[in-house]
């Protein structure tokens, strides 16, 4: 899957998870947005990762040889794009 497609699927899962939380997405997500400064807390973020595994079919956290915890939205998208089965 190319990076644009990965990013668009992540954006839609992100919006849905925030919507489920009953919180409104405040600002547009940019590459520099710090993940934990969005409306998602670490539990919300964990739920997002679980749903992306359902939707995309892979979990980069278990695929990647180098353990990594992304800080920003840009790093998060790149982590998914770079660690596909």
């Amino acid at each position, binding site marked *: 899957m190319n990076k644009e497609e990965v990013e668009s699927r992540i954006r839609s899962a992100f919006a849905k998870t925030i919507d*489920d939380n*009953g919180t409104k997405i405040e600002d547009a997500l940019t590459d520099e947005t*710090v*993940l*934990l400064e969005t409306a998602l807390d*670490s*539990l919300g*973020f*964990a*739920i997002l*990762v*679980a*749903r992306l595994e*359902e939707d995309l079919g892979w*979990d980069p*956290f*278990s695929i990647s040889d*180098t*353990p*990594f*915890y*992304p*800080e920003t939205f840009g790093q998060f998208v790149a982590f998914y794009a770079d660690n596909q089965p």
Partner: protein
Amino acid sequence: MIISEHGYWGLTDLRVLVNADVLIRARDYRSVALRLTDPAKLALALLALDGFVERLLLLSADLADDLAASLSAQFGADAILTDLDGGLTPAVPNRLVWTGPTSAGPDQSPSPKTATEWTLTTSGTTGVPKLVTHTLASLSRTTKGAATAKYRWGQLYSMERFAGLQVFLQALLGGSLVLPGTEWPLPRRLSYLADHECTALSATPTLWRKILMTPASASLAPMQITLGGEIVDDAILGALAARFPASRIVHIYASTEAGVGFSVKDGREGFPVEYLADAPGGVQLKIVDGHLFIRNPAARTIAELDSASSDASFIDTGDAVAVIGERCYFLGRASGVINVGGNKLFPEEVEQVLLAHPAVKQARVWGIKSPITGQLVSAEIVPASQDYAIEELHKILHRYCTDRLEPWKMPAIIRVVDDLEVNAAGKVKRSPQ
């Protein structure tokens, strides 16, 4: 030394601060409940009262007023020391209010009168906190003096909790302690710890992942990293080693059932199988039917010493384990209890909520692995009718659960299926494997 918003307190400062008037008055009571939101005041109160009152209850500052009142009553507190303006008076006869700044008292060191019992609250799986009693000796069993004297510990736990007290006691044994405000957001706490050159940090794997995802963590330079409270995985150990190459990384396994534990220092998840023959920390381990059993020889009773069977004092930890090659791995709780970032729940509770909704005929709930919170709740349901589209059913059930369950108990994923396998007793089989 204790470093907090109040400033730097060295030993000479502490010697007079523990004799503040309100603390001297608190020593007159037998059973004292502490409900202090300021961690520095809590530290002073613990130093001032240990050895002088018979029993101490450490109430979490974030407990609701009615819960704090009922726990104080259950404990039998005859006084409460608090920096809050809130109620509690009916439940506890005497109230010592400690608002405003800390103050120095006379420079004197009276001799301790008693071995104080420390009672902590634990959040069980039912959501109702339980009281658990320790002595200073049992609390400080895992803390080591000389080896850690050089460290400046940063407090990331609530100090009234077991793990937070471990950090407090560890720091007191010769090191020093940095106390960020408990209400501060994580980036501010991390910057505070970095600014005050903290060199040792202890947190759960979930919190460590959160720390690594927080840009302010770049300024931290810990020499000692401790993980505990949840299953530790290779990913977090590897990420910490990569980010903090100079640090010594230790993960702690502790069994609340047995009241003992051991630490693993080789930087890998699980523990070496050799521990089954020769475990560190003075404990003995064995595996029976996939459960880890632990024994603390120091706690054997006379009867057990006389008994021919050495198995008598092995306690089932309730943790499911598997040996793969040279390593023993933790699989989770044998009871099926799910641990979401340190918060525990029974899957049955979530199943009951789902089943209470008229659109649900059958439900099965279990824990799935999460690279962020260790585990998450997953559910499969069989709809009672075909009235709803799947997307709509998701929305309805999500809203329904939100109103009835704490955030960590919410199913992260709800799969709608045609059928769930039932066992011979007609019950839905829990394990999806």
